[in-house]
């Protein structure tokens, strides 16, 4: 990805000083990614919109403060968006969430066509890495990350012992480490 970490930090600094153009630049850079993530989690366009708006407002009004230890700026923004989306998801009952996941996939808007080449390459890299996981490992990761389920809830959902789910989760992440290390390093992340 051709994103300059320093530029992101500078934008964040200006956002904290009330520079609206800096907020707009951050939105232009990451709004699409955050919306895609939020929509995947909540499955509803209006709720996804609410999540993205809340994410940027939290960086604007100082309710969320950037912590470099949590990774680069886009990862920080995605963590805020994911937490907000999961909060919304968890506001509904567990059984309702399970019913919704078993139901039809919500209608999605068309995929944007002007996908930058680097984003396409990153997507291929992550998809390739995920294909290396077993079905059980991939499901454990997806239920944790996108459905916001705890390990205990995943075990209950899949009718598997809790220890099995914990092992699958750990093994999945460890299997992904070397596969995604080049991508993470190209994005300026920590070396695996």
């Amino acid at each position: 990805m051709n994103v300059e970490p320093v530029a992101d930090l500078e934008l964040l600094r200006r956002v904290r000083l009330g520079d609206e153009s800096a907020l707009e630049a951050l939105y232009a850079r990451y709004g699409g990614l955050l919306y895609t993530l939020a929509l995947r989690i909540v499955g509803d366009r209006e709720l996804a919109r609410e999540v993205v708006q809340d994410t940027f407002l939290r960086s604007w009004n100082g309710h969320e403060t950037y912590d470099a230890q949590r990774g680069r700026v886009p990862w920080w923004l995605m963590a805020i968006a994911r937490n907000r989306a999961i909060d919304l998801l968890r506001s509904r009952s567990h059984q309702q969430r399970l019913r919704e996941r078993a139901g039809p996939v919500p209608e999605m808007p068309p995929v944007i066509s002007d996908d930058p080449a680097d984003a396409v390459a990153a997507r291929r890299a992550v998809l390739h890495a995920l294909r290396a996981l077993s079905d059980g490992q991939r499901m454990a990761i997806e239920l944790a990350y996108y459905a916001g389920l705890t390990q205990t809830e995943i075990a209950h959902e899949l009718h598997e012992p809790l220890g099995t789910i914990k092992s699958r989760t750990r093994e999945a992440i460890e299997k992904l480490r070397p596969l995604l290390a080049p991508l993470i390093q190209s994005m300026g992340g920590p070396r695996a």
Partner: protein
Amino acid sequence: MIDNEHVVDDLAAFALGSLELAEHERVAAHVGTCAECGSRLAEYRALVGTLPLALAPVAPPADLWESIRSAARRAPSRPPVWKRLAVGGGAFRVTRWLAAAAVAASIVTWNARLQTELTRYAQGPQVEKLARRPARLVILKGAAQPQASARIFAAVDGQSGHMAISGLPSLPATRVYQLWFLPKAAPALTAATFTVDDDGRAWVVIRVPTDLDETRSLIVTEESVPGSAAPTGPPLLEAHEWR
């Protein structure tokens, strides 16, 4: 070398936000003091951060930026505390730091008090988050349902909040509970519809449709699914004052 004293077995689930609260706190406490596990966690977090890149990109609504800009103008950006305090000099600056310290102490006290309230309800990520950043607390007491109560924690942005409810009876599928804000000089505004579980409890994300200072009462009524445009039933829960 990572040994059994470390939390490496739980780091993956921790990075995914998938641990129960007690486990989460145990791991968080350890990584805060262990450079080895902290380093591994940074790797895992970066890895987890790449997962959304696998999603087929979806274009956000064309007017979303305009909505964000409008909302941002209604909620001006606040510079960091240290910048706001670094105005003036000498005794004036000291006075402002003392004032800041007093504010911080009051926030700690408020947090402790709210945490006590929150522990009466099921723990979860929402509770943890709100306990760190409380803004307004509204306690609704049973009117037609004396055994029922609810607490609303309004977020600091003044636009949203969470409500914890207990003691309300379960409803048939055609009925729903509805939370209303009754403004001092305007018709009732809906804030949420919800149902309760078999134990009569629920945790609900709400909208705050109007300023609490411009509101005379909050009530919960029972309505037909999917909710009413105005209250039709008697207040089951109500609040007329808050902090």
